[in-house]
């Protein structure tokens, strides 16, 4: 078995982990993102490469990951259930293993109508729990049909998402538990904007064995001003937050939001229940230094 990934090793220490999401290019040339890559390289334990986020067609994560690996980054490759059936998911995982990608974030995927090909056929042949299970199977040299996979098993570190602010919380706790049983190694939450929003979840899940990173999203002006419940997948922005920022002038918006988000990250760091933060900077990756 290969050594556990650097990220897996970091999960095993006491250090506070920082990861950051990076979208592959909407284009043929990965070097389009070189500036962002250079900034992130020294700031985070791992870059989380998204997989057609919000159903927007971008470069395949496995290809973009290959480029980032060459630049020496530690990677977590996202794999959604939306665009691939069980054959394609598993063969992408074999490709990932072959390239040396060791960390996978297995998620359901925003529905296809959010994206730039809304007429397309959504797949969801497996769901996120079945995908976690499939990756665990590959880790023990089997595919999900039970066939033997040749070569050294990849030792994937398997991550998935958890909606800490889900309401009602019961069904989200159920899913969280099922993911643990399916073999997940770490969790990344959906964006948290206020720790008060996660208390219901922690009432039901008193002790967390699996490392959990809180996701922090740097909201854009458009999101704050245009937010209505349900117009961004999985995003719950409380009125108290949008009220605070609605009156902020455009020129001041980003610095103020960065300040606010940096304070939130500090609170999460001190909270003790999280092994780290996962940053979703939505294009502002080069500003990461102002947040951490």
């Amino acid at each position, binding site marked *: 078995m290969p050594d556990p990934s650097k990220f897996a090793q970091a999960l095993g220490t006491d250090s506070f982990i920082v990861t950051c999401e990076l979208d592959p290019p909407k284009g043929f040339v990965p070097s389009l993102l070189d500036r962002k890559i250079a900034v992130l390289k020294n700031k985070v334990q791992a870059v989380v490469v998204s997989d057609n986020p919000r159903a927007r067609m971008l470069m395949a994560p496995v290809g973009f990951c290959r480029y980032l690996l060459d630049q020496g980054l530690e990677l977590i490759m996202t794999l959604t259930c939306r665009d691939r059936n*069980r054959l394609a998911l598993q063969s992408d995982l074999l490709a990932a293993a072959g390239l040396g990608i060791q960390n996978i974030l297995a998620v359901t995927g925003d529905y296809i109508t959010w994206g730039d090909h809304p007429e397309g056929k959504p797949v969801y042949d497996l769901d996120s729990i079945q995908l976690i299970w499939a990756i665990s199977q590959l880790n023990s040299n089997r595919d999900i049909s039970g066939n033997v996979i040749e070569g050294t098993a990849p030792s994937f570190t398997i991550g998935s998402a958890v909606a800490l602010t889900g*309401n009602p919380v019961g069904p*989200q706790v159920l*899913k969280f538990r099922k993911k643990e049983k*399916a073999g997940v190694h770490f969790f990344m939450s*959906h964006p948290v904007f206020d720790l008060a929003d996660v208390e219901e979840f922690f009432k039901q899940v008193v002790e967390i064995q699996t490392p959990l990173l809180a996701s922090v999203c740097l909201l854009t002006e458009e999101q704050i001003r245009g937010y209505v419940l349900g117009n961004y997948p999985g995003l719950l922005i409380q009125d108290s937050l949008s009220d605070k920022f609605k009156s902020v002038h455009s020129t001041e918006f980003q610095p103020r939001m960065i300040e606010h988000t940096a304070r939130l990250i500090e609170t999460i760091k001190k909270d003790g229940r999280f092994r780290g933060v996962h940053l979703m900077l939505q294009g502002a990756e080069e500003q990461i230094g102002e947040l951490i």
Partner: protein
Amino acid sequence: MIIASRKPFAEIKKSIELYENILVVGCGTCVAVCLAGGKKEVGLLASQLRMSFALDKKKIQISEETLERQCDHEFLETIREPLKEFDCLLSLACGAGVQFLAETYPGKKVFPGVNTSFIGVAEAAGLWTERCRACGDCLLAITGGICPRTLCVKGLNNGPCGGMIDGKCEVDPERPCAWVSIYERLAEEGRVNQIEIMFPPTDFRFQTKPGRVTHRAYLRRYNAGSK
């Protein structure tokens, strides 16, 4: 039952305007109940077509007939004789009915007058909603009588996605998340444990098209479905 809705008038008219002697064929079962293709709708559409072609000064003969079902040989046979005088059949049955009509009468030009939507229920007056995707391997025993393959837009088998907000679906904030409904129903009945273990990936062989079911008693008695 099968829910359908009538195609736009302009589309229907365009599809049949090359013919002279047209029979509008309704179906007295599902599409009659959902007010898309029963006797009344046949009458309305036929009159609309007559008026419209008359305004265009086109001599097109439109006749009407509604069968009890178009998905059954027994009823389709009843129009074998009268059908001889028509060159075009406009069927207001569901897609299955349209095809069976076409199959029974080769040589006749057959056109659909409705869009077939889903298998559903009459939720309220004038409102029909989907309940079943005919997956061939029903899991309602586990999910408390609520179908996630139909009511969850992603067809997830193992609980809600992270997009659920305030109990509503990621895709439509007006609609309850199917997995919240399932969870709450099972919780009320003290059966949440049924969904605590991973439901394995769906076996899509049950959904291989085209579907075929042979009743065992008929197989024995009449050798039905053996061909």
